[in-house]
Structures are given as C-alpha cells and as structure tokens.
C-alpha cells in the first residue's frame, strides 16, 4: 500500500478522540495554581480618565497587585504595534496596553488586577473607582463619516485610510454602458466568537531568566517575538505555546493583545505564575468584531448582463484602533471581483474610526462583504434585464482557457491578483444541477399551490488562499520508527494533526498511525507566520511535504549503503526501505534512524541490531561524511503568490407569509480547493463555514446604542445559530490543482462562510419579490420590508416570485 493512498483519503480526524472525550488541554486547563488576572474595563465608549482610586480594592483578601498605565515601564507602556502598515493607512492608531488618559470603546482595559483567584480579582476590580469625563461617542458608519465628533483628536474626519483599487476608466465605461444601476447595500457587524475566548498563562523562571507563555493564539511565534521585544528578552529566552485552542476564526491572529504583554510582564515582575482567561462578556467588548460596511454601487452593463464598469464606494467601520491595518478593506476590494472578468473597476474604501471594539479579520476577512456586493449586483442586473440570474453570471465568468488570469490589482500579500487555476463554468453547471436550478419554477408552483412561498438563490466567490511569505516543516524519524512532524503555525481544531500526518505518511511511505504532529509550539519550530487566510494546508502542508522529501532522500542514501544498492532502486513501504521488487533486501526506517547517527551506544535493541548494517568502513573519512546526524529534515515553502480557490453556493428558502420567518429548505455547495488532502475534513470546514455564514445572514448582529453600549453582549442576545438552525448541507467537489505548489492544493478554511449572506439574500428576494439590500435579515426586518414594499414600488423586484404572481393574476 506504501502509504501513498493516505493522501486524499477521508480518514477520521485523529484529534477527535482526544477533543471529543474531554481530554483536550485548553488554556484554562493549565496553571491551576497560577494567580489570576482580571481587568477593569471602560464602561464608556469615549471618555477622559480623570482619576483612578484603588483604595477600596486594597481591602480584598488575596489581592496581589493592581496596575494602571502609570505603572508600566519602558516599551510595555508604549502603544501596541501597528502590525501591518500600508501606504493608504495614513492615520493608523493603536491602543495602549492599559488606557492612558482617554478610553475609546466600552471594554478598553484601564487597570489590571492580580489576585489569588479570579473571584477575588473580580471582587477587587469591582471596587476600583475610575472617575471619567464622558466625551461624545461616535457610533455607526454614517455618524463616523459625518465626523461631527472625532474618535481621535488628531484624525480629521475619523478617516484612518482611503484605499483605492482601479483598473481601466470606470467613469467612461459606465457612461458608455447601455444600462446603469445605482444602489446601496448594508452589512452589519458580527464576530468570530470562538467558544473558547482568549487567554494567556505565563511562568517566569528566575533561575534561567526565561519566560514560558501559553496563549490561546493563532500565531505563537509572533506572540513570542512581540513579548521578547516588549520585555527586552532575547527571543531564545521566551517560549510561546498554543495549547489546544477552542476556535479562532480570525480573532486570535491579532497579536500582541494587551493581555499577551501584561500577563507575562506581571509574571516576571511578581515572579509568580499569572493566568488570565477571558470570559464571554469580555470577549464581546474587548476582543474584535468584523463585517460592518456600507456600500454604494454604480454599475454599467450591456443587454446580456455583461458588466462593463463597476464603481464601488465602501465605508468600512474599523472600530477604535487599527492594529491589524487595512487588510479587510484590501480583501473586500480585491476579492469583490469573484470569478468574473468585468470591464473597468474602481473601488474606494474609506476606513473609519468609531468608538466601538476594534475590527479585525473574522473568517472570510472582508470577502463576505465583497461577495455580497458583487452577487447582489449580479441579481440586480438580472432583474433589470429580466434575465436568468445564473445566465447573467455565466456571461461574466472567466473561461478555463484564460488562466492564469490577471485581475490587474494588488492582493493582500502585496503581489499581483493573478488567479492561478479554476473552472468556473463547470462550477456553475454543477451547482445548478445540484440544487435543481432549471426545474425550480415547477417546484415554486407546487409550493404556491399549497400556500407556501419559496425562493432560490445563488452566490459565487473566488478566495485567495495560502498567502505567504513562508511556512516551515520539520520531520524526524526516531529509532522506534515514529515520525515526528512539527510546524510553527497553530491549530484551532481544523484537523491539522490528521492532514499533516497524511501528507508526511504519503511522502515517506509510512503508516499514518506512526506520525505525530506538533503545531504552534516555539520549542519545536521557531519560525512561522500563523494560521489565517486559509493558509495552513497550503503553506505548512507543502513545507512538511518538502521536509519529508528531504528525509526520504536521506533515508534512501543511508539504506542504499547498508543494503549495498543504488538509492534509485529503493522505495519505502509501510515504514520499510526495500529494493523495488525484492522485499527481502530491506531495512526498516527505525534502523535507518539508528544508522543516521554515528554515535551508537547500544542502549536499545534497535541500536544493537543496526550494527549488522554497520556503515562507514572507510577509515579515511570522518564518521559524519558530510551528513548531519539524525534522520531528520527541515524545509520551507514560500509561494510566489497566493493560490485562488473558488466555489458556488445555492439555497432554497421558504418565507412564512404571516410570521416572516425564513427557513432554509436546502443548501448546496460546490467547492474547488484543488487536490483534496482529506475530503472529510474539507467537508467539515465547509459545514462549519456555512453555519457561520447562516449566522451572519439571519441571526448575528452587534447592537450598539447611540452612546456606544453593546446591548447584546451575551449568548442569550447575540444569536449564534444552534444546530437546529442549520440545514443539511449538500456538497460536491471539483479538483482543479494549483500549479503554484508541489501538492497542487488550495486553502479551504474560510470558504464556507463567504457567499452565504449573498445566497440567502438572493433566495429571500426571489421568494418575496422584494429587494433585499441589507443583512442580517430577522423576521422583524422582513416584516418591515414587506410593509415598506407595499407602499414603495422601487423596493419590489421586476422578476421572481412577485412578478410571477402578478403575471398569473
């Protein structure tokens, strides 16, 4: 069997027995004896701090320390880094780890309390009196744009960045177009909302002068670099480990969080273990949100629906600070183009400060908004022309023979936006077939005869995945034949232990059971970028494959000498190196591992056995003969640019004519992420993504009042969908390999979430005959939309269900 069949097989997730039986080790499972940190957080959206009085808190038995900004030394007291600068970000601002003078959103940390346990820390925190002078709060995109009040005194107009993307002369193209439409779209805020919040646990070793930090992070190597820099420690004296992490979805890629600096700093200062575990209320007001945008669209097109010019002006709400730069606007404005070749294009994104929680990437990272914009535009064009929505998309698709296709823009990795491969017409044909697009009118008529109102919707996307600059892999085979794989990026439940093992097993020719995978531990791998942008499989997968190939070559070299054969005549099957066609001339990899090290104390049976293959008889050569000892290899994968996955979703929904509830009857996905390493895991990723997408489409919104208070900061009022709200998801795959990487793979982590709002909007619009221009859509929203559409004809579609009903009467 040779192990090679392991690649592409839907083997069960190897992490599941551990994680599903409660054996996972999450941040809060560690450091049982550590002191606990809690934070005093601002109750105001915008205020000047006049005084902080800790007197009452000092009475709390078990209190260890209270820190405010005044207590922070040196670089710890400086503003947090602006991680990803960009020329368009002319007014980037970041927060201090603890607020200095001014707070700019509810939840901003003002003081840190360390106590014997979290209960006492919260008791003490509740007794700290902070005297605030409230300032006017800027809440909501339009209020930010009006700029009657400023979030930062020195940022005029509340404008952090103005980003422009442009190809061709869009004004001329639209002016010359036979048809022009203009409209506005709205998407509200949501959030990653991992079930495990953030958390940091730090141990200072005073004897060694070293720090070990556990963080529930998506980027342990970068957290290490940040801590080392802020605390003035050599990188080699800081270890950062991401233990089991209960979901990230983007929010844990931000680093360093204030807590990731403050907790290690306090641990060193106090010479005590300190732990902070974020609670749910903190996560709502002190982590990060995403999605909120207002989009103004102007589009010119021909009689077929071919887009000749598309001009989009986007107002993007980035919250109170910009530690993560303008990645979301860049992604929205580039990935908006989807699988289409459109004429001229201009996108201007104005990124605005508001007195709300910061906005950083959440699964999809700006793509759901871009796809919402483009797909709503396609539906508007189809409606205007009275043409089939799928047909309008079809005429705009990039054809298979046009790859690589250069969209003429610059992507988030700073490289040209060139799609490497794909077959978009095949995706469209497949999704239409899967959902029954062409026979839907019969289904609609049958439902209508029963008094039921149903609609169908479609959405298409292209997703840049596997952004660089690099990721590395280390593979080592030990003398018992076990294969140890390490990569620096982190895992949050994606199934890396399984797919990375599959890749290593396939490359080495060993049983997958013999492979152990370690991720996110700087002790095992020090250089890494992190887990985000659907990059783990592409980046670390290829790096591990390259490292495994090095190890395989080395194993064959050593085995060839032992077997007195030519390495080219050898292969590895089930962990044994043997001459092709002659299984008797064989040496197991565990023995090769012994042979790889000239220091051969016979402390185990394997070493004793290895002496029968004794290598290196030539007394004139040094024993290592140019090789490094050990059967191990390390390599890096660094792509020239991102690889572009694609997919199309379709849904059939039913809307209740009386209660305005929306029920998803069917949801279908056709997805192309190149070669599949493990179809079961890809399917799971898609299911989870679609579930989050349905959350964004029908349930989730961050409800701020005009004073900047978040009114639904709990799982009772922030409505993440339950399993009961998620329909069965039907999936099909296309496999168009990427020509850019050795394994031919593309990323799949974010795909599921990207087009869902667009698809549901399309389907509800089709069921109702009423234009859907903002998401999410609650029953109350749909009820009000119906009432308005009764009075306002411009809210009604020309085609679809309403038109069909009107034609019938």
């Amino acid at each position, binding site marked *: 069997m040779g192990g090679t069949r392991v690649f592409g097989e839907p083997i069960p997730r190897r992490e599941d027995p551990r994680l599903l039986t409660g054996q996972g080790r999450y941040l809060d499972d560690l450091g049982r004896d550590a002191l606990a940190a809690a934070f005093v957080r601002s109750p105001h959206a915008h205020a000047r701090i006049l005084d902080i009085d800790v007197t009452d808190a000092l009475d709390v038995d078990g209190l260890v320390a209270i820190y405010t900004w005044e207590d922070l030394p040196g670089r710890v007291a400086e503003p947090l880094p602006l991680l990803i600068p960009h020329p368009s970000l002319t007014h980037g601002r970041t927060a201090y780890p603890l607020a200095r003078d001014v707070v700019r959103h509810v939840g901003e940390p003002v003081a840190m309390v360390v106590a014997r346990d*979290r*209960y006492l820390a*919260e*008791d003490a925190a*509740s007794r700290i009196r902070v005297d605030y002078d409230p300032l006017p709060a800027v809440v909501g995109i339009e209020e930010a744009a009006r700029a009657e009040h400023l979030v930062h005194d020195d940022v005029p107009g509340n404008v952090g960045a103005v980003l422009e993307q442009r190809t061709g002369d869009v004004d001329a193209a639209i002016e010359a177009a036979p048809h022009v439409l203009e409209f506005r779209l709205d998407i509200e805020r949501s959030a990653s909302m991992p079930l495990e919040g953030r958390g940091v646990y730090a141990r200072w070793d005073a004897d060694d002068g070293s720090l070990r930090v556990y963080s529930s992070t998506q980027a342990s190597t970068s957290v290490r670099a940040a801590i080392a820099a802020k605390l003035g420690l050599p990188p080699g004296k800081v270890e950062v480990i991401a233990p089991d992490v209960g979901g990230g979805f983007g929010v844990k890629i931000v680093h360093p969080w204030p807590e990731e600096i403050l907790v290690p700093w306090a641990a060193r200062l106090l010479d005590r273990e300190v732990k902070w575990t974020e*609670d*749910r*209320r903190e996560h709502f007001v002190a982590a990060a949100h995403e999605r909120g945008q207002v989009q103004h669209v102007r589009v010119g097109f021909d009689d077929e629906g071919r887009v000749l010019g598309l001009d989009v002006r986007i107002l993007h709400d980035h919250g109170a600070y910009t530690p993560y730069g303008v990645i979301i606007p860049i992604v929205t404005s580039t990935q908006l183009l989807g699988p289409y070749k459109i004429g001229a294009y201009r996108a201007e994104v104005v990124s605005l400060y508001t007195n709300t929680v910061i906005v950083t990437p959440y699964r999809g990272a700006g793509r759901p908004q871009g796809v919402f914009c483009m797909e709503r535009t396609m539906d508007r064009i189809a409606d205007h022309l009275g043409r089939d929505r799928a047909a309008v998309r079809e005429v705009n698709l990039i054809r298979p023979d046009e790859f690589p296709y250069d969209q003429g823009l610059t992507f988030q990795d700073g490289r040209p936006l060139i799609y490497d491969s794909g077959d978009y017409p095949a995706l469209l044909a497949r999704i239409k077939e899967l959902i029954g697009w062409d026979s839907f009118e019969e289904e609609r008529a049958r439902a209508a005869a029963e008094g039921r109102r149903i609609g169908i919707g479609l959405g298409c996307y292209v997703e840049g995945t596997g952004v660089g600059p690099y990721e590395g892999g280390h593979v080592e085979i030990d003398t018992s034949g076990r294969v140890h794989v390490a990569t620096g990026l982190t895992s949050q439940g994606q199934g890396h232990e399984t797919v990375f093992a599959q890749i290593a097993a396939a490359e080495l020719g060993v049983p997958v059971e013999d492979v152990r995978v370690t991720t996110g531990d700087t002790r095992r791998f020090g250089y890494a970028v992190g887990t985000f942008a659907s990059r783990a499989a592409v980046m670390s997968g290829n790096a591990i494959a390259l490292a495994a190939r090095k190890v395989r070559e080395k194993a064959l070299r050593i085995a060839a000498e032992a077997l007195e054969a030519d390495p080219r005549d050898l292969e590895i099957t089930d962990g044994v190196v043997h001459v092709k066609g002659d299984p008797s001339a064989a040496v197991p990899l565990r023995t090769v591992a012994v042979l790889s090290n000239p220091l051969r104390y016979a402390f185990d049976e394997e070493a004793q056995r290895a002496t029968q293959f004794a290598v290196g008889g030539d007394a004139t050569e040094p024993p290592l003969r140019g090789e490094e000892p050990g059967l191990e290899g390390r390599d890096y994968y660094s792509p020239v640019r991102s690889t572009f996955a694609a997919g199309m979703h379709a849904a059939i929904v039913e809307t209740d004519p*009386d*209660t*305005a*509830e929306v029920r998803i009857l069917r949801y279908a996905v056709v997805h192309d992420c190149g070669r599949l390493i493990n179809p079961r895991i890809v399917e799971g990723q898609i299911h989870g993504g679609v579930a989050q997408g349905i959350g964004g489409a029908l*349930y989730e919104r961050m*409800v701020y009042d005009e004073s900047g208070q978040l*009114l*639904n900061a*709990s799982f*009772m*009022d922030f*409505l993440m*969908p*339950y399993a*009961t*709200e998620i329909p069965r998801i039907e999936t099909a795959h296309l496999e168009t390999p990427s020509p850019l990487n050795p394994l031919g793979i593309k990323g799949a982590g974010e795909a599921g979430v990207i087009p869902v709002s667009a698809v549901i909007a399309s389907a509800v619009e089709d069921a109702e005959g009423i234009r859907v221009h903002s998401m999410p859509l*609650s*029953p*109350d929203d749909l*009820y*009000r939309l119906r009432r308005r559409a009764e009075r306002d004809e411009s809210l009604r579609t020309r085609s679809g269900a309403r038109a069909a009903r009107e034609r019938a009467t």
Partner: protein
Amino acid sequence: MKPPPFAYHAPATLAEALDVLAAHGADAKVLAGGQSLIPLLNMRLAEPGHIVDINRVAGLDGVRIVGSEEDAQAPPGGRTGGKGVRVGALARHAAVERSAGVAAVQPLLPAALRHVAHPVIRNRGTVVGSLAHADPAAELPAVLAVLGGTVEAVSAAGRRTIPAADFFTGPLESALRPGELAEAAFFPALPPRTGVAFTETSRRHGDYALAGVAAVVGLDEDLRVSTARVGYLGVAATPLVLDLTPRARQAQDGRPPGAADWSGVAGYVRDHLDPEPDIHAGADYRRHLAGVLTERALRAATADALDRAQTPGVHDEAEW
C-alpha cells in the same frame, strides 16, 4: 463573570430552609435549578448576601395529580380542592414534561414545556423556579395565568395560596414576600370537551419567544365552541390573558360544530396588545405576530377540543 461573595446555605428540611429565609429576608435568594439565578450571579446583576440551596430538602420534587384517589394520601397543604397537577418546588421541567399523568390531566403543560430552552436546561431547571422568576417572556407564567392556577407560598409565618392573576406583579417581579418560598404550583385539570394549543415564535429554537400563545378552547354539549381563553408571553410586562369567549361565539356562528372560523381574531388581538420593542423585534412586529399566532393556536385548540370530545376513551378521567 464570577459571582461576588455570598453565604451558602444548604438546609436539609423545609423548616430549616424557612428559618434561614426568615433570618435573611430580602438578602436571601432561593436556589433550585439555578438556570436563571446562576447567570445573574455570575454577571453580578444580582448580589444577594445569602443563597439558600433547597436541593437537599426532601419532599419538594413531587409531581402529583391531585383531586384523585391518590390525593387522599397527600400531606396537609398539598390539597387544593380542585383537580389538577401539583408541581413541587424541586420538580424539574423534564419530569413534568415526561409525565404521562400530567399529559392526560393538563396537556398544555407538556405542550408548553417543549418550548422551554433545551433538554439540558429542562433537566435542571424547575417549573416553580420559572414561575418565581416571573419572566414575562417565559412559557410557564403564561400557562399558569391562562389556566387560572395558583402558587403555594410558605414561610416561617405560615402558608398562603396566591392566584396566578395576583402572582405576577411586573417583569421579574412576583407577589412572593421576603422570607417566602414558592413550595408548589397548581395547574387546574383540563375540563371535558376542552382543547389546548401552545405556539410561539422565537429567533432560534429554544430562545425566549418574540411572542407566544397558550390557547384553551371549550365546546358545549353540541360540540360548538363556547369558550376561548388565550395567554400571551413576550408581549407585556406580565403574562397577559385575553378572554376571547365573545369572539368564540361569533367564530362558531352559522358553522358546523367544531368548525369555528377564527380569521379576524388577529385584528382584535392586535388592538388589545401594547408590547414593548427590544433588540430582537419591534412592537409592531410583536403585535402582528401575536395576532397571527392567536389564530393558529385557536384553530389548533379547537381541533384538539373536538378530538378529545369525540374520542372520550382516550382522554378519560379514569386514566388518571
């Protein structure tokens, strides 16, 4: 999200529990299922000095059909005179929901309980605790109100029976006094030729309802609709009951037995409700929804009544 300090009491008898409650009055909170109280504590929205955990008190977990032979053995104070279901302070939602006896005597209870949160919450949460919490968006207060049930309160000073109409005094406010424990609730039995229905619309399965309706429809001996009462949740500060009996006669008028026409009731209901908006739905929508759900529930309850009246064997009282 950790609670502030409190003194924890775990009395083993009712007398002990009442002594602790008497000693601490308004500074004490009773812990039964904890499905509302514990989150309130953890979010520091409630800061009682004393928690009185009654889970070790024997004899409070009963779910009894009273007014039957079995009731003759009931302890003093456990009898109410009428037929019905008496639910003790420690009876979990799940125990009531799964009781065949309860379903036979008062089917509105299991019908409503299926909408209370999720199975794991129903395994811990208690029916009486839900009533004492007096959330106007919860299912059980509306059920108690529409059925005209009672709450039995006990304190060191003695016992009293509080009718549902007097029990719910405001959002999260009940007529229970400091020092009092809600020992049981009594839900009257379903009279003959009567049907029930419970329906609600919530944002997600198991959430508090945007609006919900518990309907009870009675037929006369000719199987014509004669009475209709509807209890509402989520549309007022307390559970609201509308007596739609006059509308019922109108709905039955000129139609075959049991075939009442409830269309048009929605408009009447909308005119009699004044719900508050919240972040999940506006007042207009809630009013509209309550009307829609009322028609649906009345139709279902009418069908249920007819079904029960025409197949008496299945629902015979003898089965108690």
